């Protein structure tokens, strides 16, 4: 199961990187979202996906599921969710104000 999730995370990283390298602003934002999802999957798989006992020290110490990665993912998901929302609004405003969503044109005027 860990191998499967690791491979999925790798595929998502590839997709995310491909989208981030795009010129279109919306695709970049989508790429960032997929990238952060890949990170969360990776976080989930880092310490193994042992099924079974509750994380109490002493009882079933060999087979318990490590709670720390899950706590980290929870925090990280909330942060990336908020950032995606902000980024979408910012991207929309940029598109409305500047009239383009092409990153090449957002680089700035060479003669300004």
């Amino acid at each position, binding site marked *: 199961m860990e191998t499967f999730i690791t491979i999925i995370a790798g595929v998502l990283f590839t997709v995310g990187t491909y989208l*981030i390298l795009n010129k279109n*602003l919306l695709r*970049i934002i989508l790429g*960032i979202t997929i*990238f*952060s999802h890949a*990170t969360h999957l*990776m*976080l989930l798989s*880092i*310490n193994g996906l042992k099924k079974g006992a509750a994380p109490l020290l002493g009882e079933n110490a060999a087979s318990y599921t490590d709670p*720390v*990665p899950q706590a*980290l993912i929870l*925090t*990280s998901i909330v*942060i*990336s969710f*908020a*950032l995606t929302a*902000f*980024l979408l609004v*910012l*991207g929309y*405003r*940029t598109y409305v*104000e*500047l009239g383009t969503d092409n990153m090449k044109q*957002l680089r*700035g005027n060479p003669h300004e």
Partner: protein
Amino acid sequence: MSNILVLPIIIPLLTAMTMIFFRRRVRLQQILAVVSLLLMTGINIFIVHRVSQQGIIVLDVGGWQAPYGISLVGDMLSALLVLVATFICLMCTLFAFGSVDNDHKVYFVYPFILLLTCGVNGSFLTGDLFNLFVFFEVMLISSYVLLSLGGKKLQLRESIKYVIINVISSTLFVIAIAYLYSITGTLSMAHLSERIAIIGQDGLLTTVSFLFLAVFGLKSGLLLFFWLPGSYSAPPPAIAALFAALLTKVGIYAIMRTFTLIFYHQPEITHTVIIIMAALTMILGALGAISHWEIKKILAYNVIVAVGFILFGVGVGSFDSLTGALFYLIHDMFAKALIFILGGAIISIFGTDKLRSISGLILFRPSLGWLFFIAALALAGVPPLSGFVGKVIILKEGITEGHLIMSVIGIATSLLVLYSVMKIFIHSFWGETLLSEGDQKATGTSSLLPGSILTALIIGMGLGAEWVLFYVQQAAEVMANPSLYVDAVFRRIN
């Protein structure tokens, strides 16, 4: 009594939340901001005093002991940086009273300045890597809002790049944390330090440390600074001063902390890379500073040069060079805030930052001119001012440790920095005046109060260097002996 550590984080948070309810009452917001920042400055002075008297303060949040819970750790490094950061926020808020236009004021500029303070203070005080990430995000989200607030075309264009780069680097930060957790099974910095000291820093851990270096390098502008000049010249002057004085410094603090506390076992690899990156940063930053003719761009590139210089001191890694690096870091926070405030005043008087179209300001604003002159000298490190002490310690230690080429680069870039700021001084203050009598509005006067206070501090830090060094050396001692930090967190003081 160790509960005092939570105050620098919670006071700005609560004040900001209160201020949101009084959106239209700008005067009330200003009073609240100044009062809470003054209160925090007082508390931080007390924390510095207490740390120097009784050693490192540790707060186990929620009562959970160190390896299991998250702890806030106030050693001298954190305490000093929190004090300086809070004070600079106070100065920038004072400057913002007169320089930020009314549209910004009703759109929560003061609450977001305070939230930024909360994030910065939290990053300095936390003793847990993932918590560092969370406070980084608190700081960064506030900085995104402050950067894009106002919605001018330039701001939107620059903030979209700034946000995208920072979001990606934050994701890399989480990846680095994940790798580190899977190797060591802990995220508390003290516990990490102890475990890595036991199992040894093998190639895998060194690789992970480079991932951290890349992340913090992106945040602090160490070599990966391509985003910095654009985004630091977009926001209004008060915000730019706040960014220049605080944001990159948090990244520098993170590098200092991780590479002196956690990844210090293979300095011949990691620290050499830091030194090479610092050299390139200094050279490229100095070239950028002398090649531009806009005030904002010149100042932004000066930020980059200082980052390179501080991290040269960190890379050398001895007790003396860490002392120098921290002294120079504190000096640089004051000096950058000062020069951005004064530069912002010049820009707001002329309405442009093109050096070729402004001149002759000294007739109307003599005090502004001389403050700018002192700030320029301090940036370059001319003797009686504070930049000199830090520079001398770092360069002397660099030569003793055999980094001769680096020291030459350091001296050469200092001269280029002096040239670049003197260029601003000469072009904007000397020459035929372009302002008519009617033009000399009341703009720019709001910079005089924070400007004079910061100038006084810079001169005071230069003349009273021994008094400041007393505290800075205590911080460097903890950095040079990570076991002091670890023992304090685990309460193993014997």
